[in-house]
């Protein structure tokens, strides 16, 4: 950020944007990984596991840095600055969003998407144990390409040799993780945390780009 000091506002904004890009990539990647860890689905009544697709990670909608934040700014800009309504009126009209928030949940999502988790389930996650059905032997399935020919897979991120990166990039002081035998149900919370941190070159895409390609074994 300090690179822009004394320069034009555009330079400052560009550096701020660069910083936000980093943060957003890191945050959304870790949220996705976090979602992977906690994606246990239990039926509210029977307690049995529900067979449903893996949760989609709507990280773009998370917190004020996602679409919600941009929409908020757009809303204030349109209603307050362009239409000329007072700030108080702008906020009073925004109560429609608060009503819509509840209405959409109870109309479309309640009991259909979110299966309430039992206390045992949450405590199990808290203690670092997960359902045996949560087979994480292939933890990297979610970030590795399934179709080698798909255009999305031709990104810098996916071309890297993932296992090598993880082994090479583990932070100092962290024990070596055997990626071949990662088995989430048997991992402790500390081990999971270490695993997530060890994935930083993958999750932190922009930082990853700035590292020497030879270090990360990237194919051109």
């Amino acid at each position: 950020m300090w690179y822009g000091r004394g320069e034009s506002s555009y330079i400052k904004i560009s550096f701020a944007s660069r910083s936000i890009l980093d943060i957003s990539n890191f945050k959304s990647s870790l949220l996705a990984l976090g979602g992977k860890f906690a994606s246990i689905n239990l039926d509210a009544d029977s307690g049995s596991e529900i067979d449903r697709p893996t949760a989609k990670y709507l990280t773009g909608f998370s917190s004020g840095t996602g679409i919600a934040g941009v929409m908020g700014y757009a809303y204030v800009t349109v209603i307050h600055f362009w239409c000329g309504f007072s700030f108080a009126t702008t906020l009073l009209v925004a109560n429609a969003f608060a009503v819509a928030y509840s209405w959409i949940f109870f109309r479309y999502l309640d009991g259909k998407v979110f299966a309430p988790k039992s206390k045992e389930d949450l405590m199990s996650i808290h203690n670092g144990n997960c359902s045996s059905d949560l087979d994480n032997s292939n933890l990297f399935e979610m970030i590795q390409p399934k179709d080698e020919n798909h255009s999305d897979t031709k990104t810098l991120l996916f071309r890297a040799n993932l296992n090598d990166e993880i082994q090479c990039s583990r932070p100092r002081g962290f024990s070596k993780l055997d990626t071949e035998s990662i088995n989430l149900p048997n991992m402790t919370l500390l081990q999971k945390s270490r695993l997530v941190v060890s994935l930083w070159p993958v999750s932190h895409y922009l930082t990853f780009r700035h590292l020497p390609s030879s270090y990360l074994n990237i194919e051109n």
Partner: protein
Amino acid sequence: MLAGAKEISEGGTALVFVANVLPSLLIKLSAPYWFHHVSYGVRILAGSCLFGASFLTVAYFSSCLAQDDSSEEELTKRFIGLELVGVMFGSLACGMGEVSHLI
């Protein structure tokens, strides 16, 4: 609320940012210890009510501030403080909603 930070407190936007972050952070930190006691429906309803409370509080006190012709600094500070309470309501709602939808 961040979009209207300057409207809420022109000279203290940092305060608005802090009020918008801290309650949400507290919710996120404490969520694993009490979320299993509260159903999704209750959380969403509480979040919706908090959003409403936030909008109403900030709207009411910002209009009070706009109509206040007196130069009483104490009164102005009180209004801004109450607006910040409104921002905190919104932050609580955001934290609760975000965590609820993520887990």
